[in-house]
């Protein structure tokens, strides 16, 4: 008897939230609009229905509310704070960076642990524009003391949520809105995904693609096309930004000798650069070709559809860069296109 079902990413988050809230009465969830019938893009339906007293709408007060989450955690609770757009977390940077990240170390362990979980959702496309479609993992991953995870598949959306809601230190979960309706196999019951461990999503021999969040979906599409060209791609789903799983990345590069890093954010000073730096420092002798970093165009996100199309890397962008690494001819014009079924307005 299998206990595995297909769930959407949103339903997997919901299931994990309910499982954790069932197990731990100290968990409560709050944030702007979390108890609406839309239920955080469908990721809080069951949690709202089952724990109405523990899911709370709040005023717009990101900085103070994060402080309140910290204080509640100091007093023994386990807050789950939710931002419908991760861009609003910039308003809470002081509390997250200057206090939550420091809590355990700065008070010498004498002020206890700080078990807070913060969910932020990354937007993309449909004209959301510059301030509603950023992907802010590298900002928070820069600071020691914060754990930053980016689940890609439903099983990890559930598993990382379970880990976050039982962790002793702050965990920031960045979820990509474009992943919410994707389905995947999810085990029933309490199956956590360890924080700090990447996942080999596809095994291959010729080139390694390290991808974060939605870029994994794009990498899979590129890898399918590359397979038809006879290229064997290994894909690593990073899952955890901090701590970063050096071992899995280096083991793969040792095998393939080629690396492309595809991140949902900008390349400069970002996760793609960090992964490239680690491989340059620790795996340089494995490399047969220069490392390729891919991310959004180096400008704020535009609104106009035609500009958006140019702003985001596509599967064919990945395919072209991998083909380039292997000196294989490739014409982008012939690349398959993918229909975005998303219906606005977000």
């Amino acid at each position, binding site marked *: 008897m299998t206990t595995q079902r297909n769930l959407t990413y949103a339903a997997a988050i919901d299931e994990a939230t309910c499982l954790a809230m069932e197990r731990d009465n100290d968990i*409560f969830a709050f944030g702007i609009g979390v108890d609406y019938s839309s239920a955080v893009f469908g990721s809080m339906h069951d949690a709202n229905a089952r724990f109405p007293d523990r899911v709370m709408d*709040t*005023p717009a*007060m990101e*900085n*103070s*509310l*994060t*402080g*309140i*989450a*910290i*204080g*509640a*955690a*100091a*007093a*023994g*609770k386990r*807050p789950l704070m939710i931002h419908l757009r991760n861009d609003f977390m910039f308003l809470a940077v*002081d*509390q997250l960076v*200057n*206090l939550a990240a*420091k809590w*355990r*170390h*700065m*008070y*010498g*362990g*004498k*002020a*206890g642990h700080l078990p807070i979980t913060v969910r932020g959702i990354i937007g993309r496309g449909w004209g959301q524009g510059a301030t509603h479609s950023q992907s802010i993992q590298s900002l928070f991953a820069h600071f020691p*003391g914060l754990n930053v995870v980016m689940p890609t598949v439903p099983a990890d959306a559930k598993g990382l949520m379970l880990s976050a809601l039982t962790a002793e230190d702050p965990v920031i979960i960045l979820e990509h809105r474009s992943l919410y309706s994707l389905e995947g196999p999810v085990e029933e019951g309490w199956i956590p995904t360890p924080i700090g461990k990447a996942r080999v999503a596809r095994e291959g021999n010729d080139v390694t693609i390290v991808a974060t969040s939605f870029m994994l979906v794009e990498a899979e599409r590129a890898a399918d096309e590359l397979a038809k060209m006879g290229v064997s791609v290994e894909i690593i789903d990073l899952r955890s930004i901090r701590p970063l799983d050096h071992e899995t990345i280096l083991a793969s590069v040792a095998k393939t000798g080629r690396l492309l890093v595809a991140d949902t954010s900008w390349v400069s000073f970002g996760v793609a650069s960090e992964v490239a730096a680690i491989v340059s420092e620790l795996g340089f002798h494995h490399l047969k070709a220069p490392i390729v970093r891919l991310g959004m165009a180096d400008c704020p996100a535009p609104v106009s559809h035609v500009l958006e199309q140019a702003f985001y890397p596509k599967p064919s962008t990945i395919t072209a860069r991998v083909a380039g690494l292997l000196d294989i001819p490739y014409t982008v014009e012939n690349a398959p296109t993918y229909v975005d079924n998303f219906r606005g307005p977000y």
Partner: protein
Amino acid sequence: MALKSSTETRLDFYRRMYLIRRTEEMLAERYKEQEMRTPAHFGVGQEAVAVGVCSTLGTKDHVYSHHRCHNHYLACDGDIGQLAAELYGRETGCARGRGGSVHLTQKDKGFIISSAILGQTVAVAAGSAFAFHLDAKPYVAVTFFGEAACEEGIVYETMNFAAIHKLPLLFVCENNGYSTESPLAARQPEGTSLCRRAESFSIPTMSVDGNDVEAVHAAAAALTESIRKGGGPAFLECSTYRWLEHVGPYFDHEMQRTYRTREELEAWQKRCPVAQQRTRLIDDCSMTDTAVEEVEQDIERIIEDAITAAKAAPWPDVEQLMKG
């Protein structure tokens, strides 16, 4: 404001204020040796606020403080030796030498943390209050902050939330008139009343002489009693004065600073909270000067021993640098 207090209570207030005053003065004196390598904001002159408020609390209540935090830590019975050791950067410090003067903790005494970012712990204190509220616990959270924190937006976000949920939270504003060297005139519009700002959130307020420990205690007792009965948050403004420079062990005039006058300082020193309470013990409680001196000498010895031990305490193990 004359209060009828038993001699015991009056003496207790005096003892606590004297302990804070002398701890700060003795730490400040040694601070000049450059061996406490941590920016310290001494609270000399503001003792009555800490003692008046904390004397209404128990160890299960939660206290949060700011950069000028030694007074509140000590008023919660925070360990003197651990404070001194923290300033000396020793393993025996209350934050094991990781936090320094502005990042203190003494959780078992109800002093949760202090932090150096203005307004930051105002929200965090509301978090403790929110936890008490969710779990229907009969405790109060107290946040101490200066009047300059009232120039930060987070204070109003927090007041709004505390008022909505009727949180058991006491806002204690220590209004000492200066933010570093900036006077009120540069920072708040003429005629500003911080109490009125709190009242605009339907938060009840009181304003007291922050140099009169009994007045502070009476107001804090009334407000915490109302909070414990479910009355929701309250705001207490205490007018007081910082004697020493913003950060460091010297008087401003010793450093030739002119942002405030020596006459202003001396006028406030005439209203010294510690001396005022001492006068009450002698004039109103028939204590002899000798009896008070005995109390003082006991405290001096305790502080001296604690600081001496702190200075001799072991350094943190550098192998533990990355460990929290």
